[in-house]
């Protein structure tokens, strides 16, 4: 399924041909006490934007912290530009990192914050100040740059984090949930910015648990769950898989048996299961089914109270992909 997995055997993906990996993880594991946050993770990431997708607790943030040398891998090897990350702070001169949390130095202004951190990258105070102003302008925060961070909104905090991560023009940019808490305008701005950076050749690893956010930035994704890479490759192939995934729709109505009898005759519906006050139908063509159900209900005089899909979330996609992988493994053996 995965183009990148295919690439493992048959060579790199077309648009990244010739590009060698920037980030290489080989059997990397990391524990939080008894909890295994990252489990035997092996992956290579090249230039351009890569989306790291996964539900809460999948290990995305831990993987990112390992990448910026905040955590030491308990097992395995993790390299950036061929060098081990842990214990090599000099390597961090080429890395920009925006963590997930909102906490910040509330007493200082946005400009002072970004300038001080840019100075820590080795720039002179004047150069750091100029770069800080430019980075703040790129995230559209110039008007608020002299206000204390304590007065910033959630979205502004996200943007100032992004500014400090990119002010020194790093070769690798690691962004942990950069869109969380942003309004649609700020989201668009940040999405555009990340796309620009990716197009300019920066290696951007950006995490989210929202599929369409990642889709708006890149087609290259890594899907993580329970500390493992579940899928890697092109998002459209994964979307295809999702579309082939038998989709369930739950209809709460007053006469579920009557509606079930009518729906079972439709070709788009593969199976129907009747519950006390609802029915659950399964389909491989959800786009057809959503308008179909109310139409049939109206024809049958059935009153629908709710129409939901238990599968319409990322968790379900992960579950499906996990099962699919297990099925394939069984089939191969």
């Amino acid at each position: 399924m995965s183009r990148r997995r295919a690439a493992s055997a048959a060579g790199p993906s077309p648009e990244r041909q010739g590009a060698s990996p920037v980030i290489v993880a080989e059997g990397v594991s990391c524990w939080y006490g008894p909890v295994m946050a990252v489990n035997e993770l092996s992956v290579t990431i090249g230039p351009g934007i890569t989306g790291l997708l996964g539900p809460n607790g999948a290990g995305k943030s831990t993987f990112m912290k390992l990448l910026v040398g905040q955590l030491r891998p308990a097992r395995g090897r993790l390299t950036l530009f061929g060098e081990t990350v842990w214990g090599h702070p000099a390597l961090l001169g080429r890395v920009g990192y925006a963590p997930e949390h909102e906490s910040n130095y509330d007493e200082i202004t946005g400009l002072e914050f970004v300038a001080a951190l840019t100075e820590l990258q080795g720039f002179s105070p004047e150069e750091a100040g100029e770069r800080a102003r430019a980075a703040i302008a790129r995230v559209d925060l110039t008007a608020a740059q002299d206000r204390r961070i304590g007065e910033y909104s959630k979205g502004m905090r996200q943007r100032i984090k992004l500014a400090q991560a990119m002010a020194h023009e790093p070769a690798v940019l690691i962004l942990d949930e950069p869109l969380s808490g942003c309004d649609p305008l700020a989201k668009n701005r940040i999405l555009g910015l990340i796309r620009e950076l990716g197009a300019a050749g920066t290696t951007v690893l950006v995490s989210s648990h929202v599929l369409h956010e990642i889709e708006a930035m890149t087609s290259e994704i890594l899907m993580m769950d329970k500390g493992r890479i579940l899928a890697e490759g092109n998002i459209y192939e994964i979307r295809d898989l999702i579309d082939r995934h038998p989709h369930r729709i739950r209809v709460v109505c007053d006469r579920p048996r009557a509606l079930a009898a009518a729906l079972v005759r439709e070709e788009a519906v593969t199976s129907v299961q009747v519950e006390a006050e609802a029915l659950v139908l399964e389909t491989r063509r959800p786009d057809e089914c959503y308008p179909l159900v109310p139409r049939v209900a109206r024809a049958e005089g059935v009153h629908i109270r709710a129409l939901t899909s238990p599968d319409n979330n990322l968790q379900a996609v992960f579950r499906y992909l996990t099962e699919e992988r297990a099925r394939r493994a069984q089939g191969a053996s």
Partner: protein
Amino acid sequence: MSIRDQGYQPYRGPRTSATTRWGVVLRHTLRMGLRQPWAIVALSLGGVWAMGWAVALYLSMRLIASTPPGAGNELAIPDPAALAGTILVRWYGVPVFAFLMAMLVGGSTIADDRRQNAFSFYFARSLGRDQYLIGKLAATTLAVALISVGASMLLVLSRLSLYRAGSDAVLPLVLLPVRALALGLLESLALAAPAVALSSLSPRRGLVQGGMAALFFLPALLGAIATSLTRNPWPQLLSPMAQLEAVGARLFGDASFAGEYPLPWLPALGVLGVTIVGSVALVRWRLAATEVVAG
């Protein structure tokens, strides 16, 4: 836009009374507070220390028993029963452990809620701010009392278990648990209330704990220096430990509690009361002014 009936049925079963929900805050705060490793350390050290005192009490009882009547006074053996008060008010008793417990549990209780934006968990439901305050204060007092009242009652029980019919006066022994409990609870409240009050002033745990240390050590040391220079007990009036010593001396009828320049007990009790009431008023005022905001 129309609102559709999707069959929502509100819960109509029994609920606890709104005036007893502080119990939930108390249980939660106590559970979180006592789960901290340092709180366990303070509790364990306090327990071990109190057991050492119980052994001392036993030995002094044996010594008194082995000396001829009247010789005890010449040997200046302190009244073993008074040890139940001494352990509460002298610095070599358990106040240090009780103080550490107040800092750990009380000093972080409201500060942590503010820093972690946890107010919304409490105040977005039918829980009054006074209920929240009572729960927090009671939990901190109880945590401190585990050390102070616990140690004191251990000595009381040790003394009662060594009761000798005929030679021991009954009434003082009957009153002993009451006195120890009163002083222990007063000490617990005197340590817990300022800790909770300071905790409502800043979300930074370090600052709150620093403020607590300053509040207790600063007047004690300045008061002791000024008393030593002026040979006058009044400079110690603002020292919580001196106040407790004065009240303890009155309760246990033992003047040795209060040192060379004893502070009168009534003003001391008054300042303790003002401190406790003032602390509660401060927290109420802070909570009333608190807006539940994120970030």
